[in-house]
């Protein structure tokens, strides 16, 4: 079977010549290089939560990928590149593997995956995906960057441990050393709590109390009675709560036994993106997104945007749409992406994770930007967040 990508390069040799010299005459724009990105999403079922105020957008992530394609095309028109987003969105009860297998068959592709960890691994392990470049733009599971890493998967979503490291750096800096940990009972909450424990140890903080949340109370009415009793302890500097679906954590604030700040899933949260980020030119990205979607940009939107923009950056610099070449360039020292987060973003060569700053935010403002000043690293301070090379159990990238 003829490889479609090779054919495209063969048909349009002219812009390649000019690009190699980093100067692009306007006239060449007539010959176009098609850059096709496949977007795969499985709609997810959100667990029931107490508050009616917690609403997740239906098109979470999808709009981020769309904006990435728009941004790529705004540059691409000067370079003779045309980016297309082919969407494959499956319903909650549908098996995504069948249509994905079909879409990946017979050609090497660049794919943005807005799916859960289990589906991601199933797709990555398909023989049809072996020559593809996949981006994990949703799952924060640390294992996917560690013992479950796959050489054909790069991650634009941060790992949980990057987020919890950022939080613990902040607590260390503020000398809030004694933590009261409240764990939610859903799998994500438990994984996040484990990550909190790991990061607390790394940054020399002490979990003085640890409790699992009580599931049978309606906190909208009872928080003032239940939470003070639940958080009764002699001494703690801060309450850390893990509640990824935001079921109960918002009711902990101002109800703790001791007057202490709440961090984690409510109060001050470590995030990869938030509508309150406006520094570093982020206001422009926010307003472009709002114009496109009539809502604010979420972390999942950001990870999807970053995946599509990473493809765009690589294709622009190497003028190739070969998945293998794009992957090689993205993992090289040359690659950098301006991600509106205060530093150039690039990927860790040992596990394919996007290095990025993590913002500590509350509902109305950014409190701090991690890595927090003072935490040093021989390579880049960004590597004080998440799995570093020596501790990595990922062999697929070696």
């Amino acid at each position: 079977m003829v490889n479609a990508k090779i054919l495209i390069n063969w048909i349009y040799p002219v812009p390649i010549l000019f690009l190699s010299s980093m100067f692009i005459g306007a006239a060449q724009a007539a010959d176009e290089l098609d850059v096709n990105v496949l977007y795969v999403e499985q709609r997810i079922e959100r667990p029931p939560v107490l508050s009616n105020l917690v609403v997740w957008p239906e098109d979470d992530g999808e709009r981020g990928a769309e904006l990435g394609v728009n941004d790529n095309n705004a540059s691409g028109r000067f370079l003779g590149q045309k980016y297309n987003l082919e969407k494959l969105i499956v319903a909650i009860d549908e098996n995504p593997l069948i249509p994905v297998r079909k879409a990946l068959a017979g050609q090497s592709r660049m794919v943005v995956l807005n799916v859960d960890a289990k589906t991601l691994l199933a797709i990555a392990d398909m023989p049809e995906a072996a020559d593809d470049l996949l981006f994990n733009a949703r799952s924060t599971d640390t294992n996917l960057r560690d013992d479950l890493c796959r050489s054909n998967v790069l991650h634009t979503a941060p790992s949980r441990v990057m987020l919890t490291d950022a939080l613990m750096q902040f607590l260390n800096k503020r000398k809030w050393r004694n933590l009261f940990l409240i764990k939610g009972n859903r799998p994500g909450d438990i994984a996040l709590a484990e990550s909190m424990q790991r990061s607390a140890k790394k940054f020399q903080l002490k979990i003085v109390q640890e409790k699992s949340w009580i599931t049978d109370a309606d906190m909208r009415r009872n928080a003032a009675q239940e939470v003070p009793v639940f958080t009764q302890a002699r001494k703690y500097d801060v309450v850390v709560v893990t509640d990824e679906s935001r079921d109960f954590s918002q009711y902990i604030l101002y109800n703790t036994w001791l007057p202490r700040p709440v961090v984690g899933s409510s109060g001050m949260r470590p995030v990869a993106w938030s509508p309150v980020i406006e520094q570093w030119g982020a206001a422009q990205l926010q307003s472009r997104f709002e114009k496109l979607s009539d809502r604010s940009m979420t972390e999942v939107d950001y990870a999807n945007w970053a995946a599509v923009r990473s493809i765009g950056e690589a294709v622009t610099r190497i003028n190739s749409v070969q998945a293998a070449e794009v992957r090689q360039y993205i993992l090289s020292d040359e690659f950098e992406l301006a991600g509106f987060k205060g530093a150039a973003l690039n990927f860790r060569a040992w596990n394919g994770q996007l290095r990025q700053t993590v913002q500590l935010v509350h509902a109305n403002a950014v409190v701090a930007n991690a890595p927090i000043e003072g935490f040093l690293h021989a390579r880049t301070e960004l590597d004080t967040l998440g799995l570093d090379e020596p501790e990595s159990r990922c062999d697929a990238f070696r």
Partner: protein
Amino acid sequence: MNSSLAKIVGFTAAAVLPLSMSNLAFAHWAYVSNEKDDTVSVIDTETDEVIKTIDVGERPRGVTLSRDFQTLYICASDSDTVQVMSVVDDKILHELPSGEDPEQFALHPDNKHLYIANEDDAIATVVDVETRTVVAQIDVGVEPEGMAVSHDGKFAIVTSETSNMAHWIDTEAQSIVANTLVDQRPRDAEFTLDDKELWVSSEIGGTVSIIDSESKEITHTLNFAIPGISSDRIQPVGMELTKDGKWAFIALGPSNHVAVVNRDTLEVTDYILVGRRVWHMALTPEQDKLYTTNGVSGDVTVVDVASRKAIKTIKVGRFPWGVTILPSEHVPN
């Protein structure tokens, strides 16, 4: 001790004499836009004090003077307009149709065409300042920011921050004739006085690209390293090239330093510590003092060019951004 004191006194006396003689000649005005105060501060460069603060439109950023030094153009980003202010009485004479969210601009040597970057719309707007009409709107890359017009007037440059390009606009045809790919997030563009080179700073890339105006290709890339400061914080933004062709000053954003580049050897010779998050700069007509706007610390640093030292910090409004200097001979009485 006495003799060293005498030396200092003697030195000071010698230095004071030419200064006092030139009192009238050297009292320029530096106009500083305060992004979060909706004001422009005016600094007298002889005393280095703020002599007045003028209310202007919302979120003022780019500021530039007309070629005859009679009017100040102000990009009032959130008012979606360019204001034209008389330097004589600080009155806003009129507003120009600038397109949405104007951030930076450059005035053509013809004193007639203003090239404006419209950050949110990915376009550059060309306005005739006499007829106050839009002459052309040119599609450019995402988040256009830096603007420059060559001294011979042939090319206008706009840099697009997210597309990472310098677009070359032919000012006759008002259309893009070439694009040069540079490092991440290009912020500022400056032509050398002979127009042979275009300098483009890349904030996130941490570099300055020197581009040959003939071939439109990068001939050299400047890198920066300051001991004890993380490379992530070294973010080149504003640039000032001295008229004698010997030196370049590069503002390095949140590293709080200005780099001094020897343009013969293309080496960085000094890093000058200034205020926090240094954005843009302006040199006096004599090229003896450099004024830097420091966004986070809300002040302006005065750098003595000869000694490469910061000599004074002047408090201005919140988030000072742009700066331009009105030569003393045009300062109103």
